[in-house]
């Protein structure tokens, strides 16, 4: 593991050399009474996972981290924290890796030069007041072609370490979290759309029940759902699914 970075308040680091899943550990800590701002960081995950239990490639050198937050808001608003984190991560990566062009992809992936470089997975349980925001960034290695084509920071010539990325993320997330708490989702939505991938382009969302919704990516609704406009002018909002843009991303 690279040297443990100093984190911006309110974040406090708990670092591990190897762990199954940082999200699972953060959830365990939440149940054990850990506080808002606890950050679980592991040099390596042996059971890293993404959406719907997909394997998350977690070799040493990449960033595997989970943020424990107590947003104290209704559950449907808490989902907005994925956008808060994505906006903060995009800014963090743009700061430390100026050679890359970073974009947000619905709902909360971050792309570098059009390829997936980071993923965010939010988890909460029942009526719990905590939320775990898992953030994985491909720093030194990208997975073999999977569902989405991927890249890593080193691949675009950026020498930053996982610790550098975590420190920059915490600085930006502290600011964006406060913005969201004080001013709501509107400024987050605006910043997300300003850096969004595929706006105005044809896209399709593959839903869990097998339905494929196709349309032009028209933006986000006020709560963060993906808006797709179909050829007949109708609009569908999508809350969960895999999104692909024409051209394969």
């Amino acid at each position, binding site marked *: 593991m690279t040297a443990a970075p100093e984190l911006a308040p309110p974040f406090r680091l708990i670092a591990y050399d190897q762990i199954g899943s940082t999200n699972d550990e953060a959830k365990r800590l939440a149940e054990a009474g850990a506080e808002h701002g606890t950050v679980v960081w592991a040099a390596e995950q042996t059971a890293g996972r993404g*959406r719907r239990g997909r394997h998350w490639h977690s070799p040493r050198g990449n960033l595997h981290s989970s943020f424990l937050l107590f947003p104290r808001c209704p559950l449907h608003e808490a989902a907005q924290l994925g956008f808060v984190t994505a906006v903060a991560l995009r800014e963090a990566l743009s700061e430390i890796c100026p050679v890359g062009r970073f974009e947000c992809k619905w709902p909360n992936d971050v792309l570098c030069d059009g390829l997936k470089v980071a993923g965010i997975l939010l988890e909460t349980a*029942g009526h719990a007041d905590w939320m775990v925001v898992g953030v994985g960034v491909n720093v030194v290695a990208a997975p073999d072609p999977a569902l989405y084509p991927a890249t890593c920071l080193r691949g675009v010539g950026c020498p930053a370490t996982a610790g550098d990325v975590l420190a920059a993320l915490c600085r930006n997330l502290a600011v964006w979290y406060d913005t969201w708490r004080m001013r709501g989702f509107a400024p987050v939505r605006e910043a997300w759309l300003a850096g969004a991938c595929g706006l105005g382009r044809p896209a399709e969302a593959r839903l*869990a029940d097998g339905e494929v919704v196709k349309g032009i990516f028209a933006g986000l609704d006020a709560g963060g759902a993906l808006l797709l406009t179909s050829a007949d002018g109708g609009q569908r909002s999508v809350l969960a699914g895999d999104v692909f843009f024409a051209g394969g991303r």
Partner: protein
Amino acid sequence: MSLTSEDVEEIVRILDASFVDELRLETKRFRVILRRGDAGWTQETRTLAPEHATPSAIADAPAEAVAGEAPPAAAKAGAPVETQLVGTFYRAPNPGAPPFVEVGSRVEPDTVVGIVEAMKLMNSVHAGMRGTVLEICTDNGQFVERGHVLMRVRREDA
């Protein structure tokens, strides 16, 4: 100790890495059969009558009715487990994995019975009560509104 969905997941993880195609496990409290299929593992679980709780609860029910105090309608149909989040309901932690619970599964208040996803927020739904799953009212992958009844549970802690 009863079998939890986490136990089943752990067993499947171990089996995944093995050459075993079928596992039958039976104790005094439960029976579980896991089979490897083309689309992943299938699961059959059955809670066997424990020494206390279930048989006496069933036997007591008519006695209560005779006593003149009819059980509330909700108790007959089972208590609802509802979602607080609008989104997509999943019965298993990932595609191909055994469902968290089946009809007949024993649940504790903190047993995870499903997941609802909205914008990559995964909300684990807990049973919220002790009992047995009577009915699963929602299909895997179905879109659910807030307050939607996901399943019904015969309560044993009321």
